[in-house]
């Protein structure tokens, strides 16, 4: 058999293999959960043989897309409000909803030593830009605004606020040094319980409404066994260990 022909047959076989027994589940994942979800997906795919297709973004954006017919089977939101709303509007299965993680907000800088243990740097003049996720779309952005309101800083920092479309973009602004400070998710800057780069203030949970992040089975996943299997897997000890290692509570 000639080489090109063999290559063609092998790729055709591989392609058919993916179309065969294993299901592909399309999952919408809140941007803050990107890193843990990739680790969870690897473990899940290995165990079940099913494939996950992951999309990361702002929860509010996913809401709009799902309302307009996006084919996601499962939503891992950054809040509990959005899944509840989808359930009450008939786009998701209410009984399937549960909290898969509780997120933590951090004030973070890529420069070591800039952020102190009390977040007093917020009141200082030592920064020009404070990055947050869009409060209208991303729960972590809304939480950041609550913290600023608690510290009575809303007016003072107004001219310094730069808004990312989602929490990953807020992280990008800070990581590239274009914004000196930013409110991001602890999961983005910690590994195994340690802040892995720069300096950070883990914001006390009493300064903002708890970031309960809920998962829910969407209508498009109703008849997909693999979608249900993924939700079950998120309850497993293997998944919980991964979730905790990124700094989430359960």
């Amino acid at each position, binding site marked *: 058999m000639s080489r090109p022909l063999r290559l063609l047959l092998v790729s055709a076989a591989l392609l058919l293999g993916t179309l065969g027994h294993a299901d592909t589940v399309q999952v919408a994942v809140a941007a803050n959960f990107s890193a843990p979800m990739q680790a969870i997906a690897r473990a899940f795919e290995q165990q079940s043989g099913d494939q996950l297709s992951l999309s990361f973004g702002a929860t509010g954006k996913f809401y*709009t897309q799902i309302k307009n017919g996006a084919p996601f089977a499962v939503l891992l939101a950054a809040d509990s409000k959005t899944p509840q709303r989808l359930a009450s509007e008939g786009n998701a299965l209410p009984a399937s909803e549960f909290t898969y993680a509780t997120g933590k907000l951090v004030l973070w800088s890529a420069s070591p030593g800039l952020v102190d243990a009390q977040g007093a740097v917020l009141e200082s003049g030592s920064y020009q830009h404070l990055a947050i996720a869009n409060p209208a779309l991303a729960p972590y952005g809304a939480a950041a605004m609550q913290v600023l309101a608690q510290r009575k800083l809303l007016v003072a920092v107004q001219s310094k606020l730069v*808004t990312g479309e989602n929490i990953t973009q807020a992280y990008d602004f800070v990581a590239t040094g274009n914004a000196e400070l930013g409110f991001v998710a602890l999961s983005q800057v910690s590994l195994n319980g340690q802040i892995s780069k720069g300096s950070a203030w883990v914001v006390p949970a009493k300064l903002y409404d708890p970031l309960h992040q809920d998962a829910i089975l969407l209508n498009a996943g109703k008849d997909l066994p693999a979608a249900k299997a993924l939700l079950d897997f998120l309850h497993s000890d293997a998944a919980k260990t991964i979730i905790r290692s990124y700094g989430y509570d359960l």
Partner: protein
Amino acid sequence: MSADDLQALLLTLKLASLVTLLLLLFGTPLAWWLACGRSRWRTPVAALTALPLVLPPTVLGFYLLLALGPQGALGGIARAVGVLPFTFAGLVFASLIYSLPFVVQPLRTAFEGLGPRPLEAAATLRASPLRAFFTVALPLARPGLITAAVLGFAHTVGEFGVVLMIGGNIPGQTRVLSIQLYDHVEALEYASAQHLAALLLLFSFAVLLVVYRQRAALHHV
């Protein structure tokens, strides 16, 4: 239209006007050199100029975010002159790169279409090359100039990906019309979104109408 929408609209018009003006200023000599120069650098420079046509705007935005950051290749210069992400000046800089081919290509085509004869005629009348350029080449290339200006302006108005990457969504600074529209859609404010979308649609149609009229008029002469 809300006050926020109006602010975004005015900011967009300011950005597009300034960018078009600067691009005509710098793009015209560049297009002339590309059309008539003899340097062996002509082809690589032409390819470089056309690059923003092909590159996804997010790639451009991403590189600008890295390059203009404090550790970036252009970070030092950017800080010295104030061309930074999250500023209006930063958006102008990004838009200059982004809309460059839309101004340079029509100009280059127009200059190439003139052929050598009008300038040779000017030279026999002892016009200096500079004078010949301003009194002969530029007036003859007028349709190309108009197309370049209209396309540069329109393309800057439609800019989205680059602004999303480096803008930071600051009202009055970097929140342009396309970002405002995107925010409306994401926040489910469909009525407000439709106002802006309809406005942009009409504007785009009007722009194309101007360009095609120009072309049609040219063929009738």
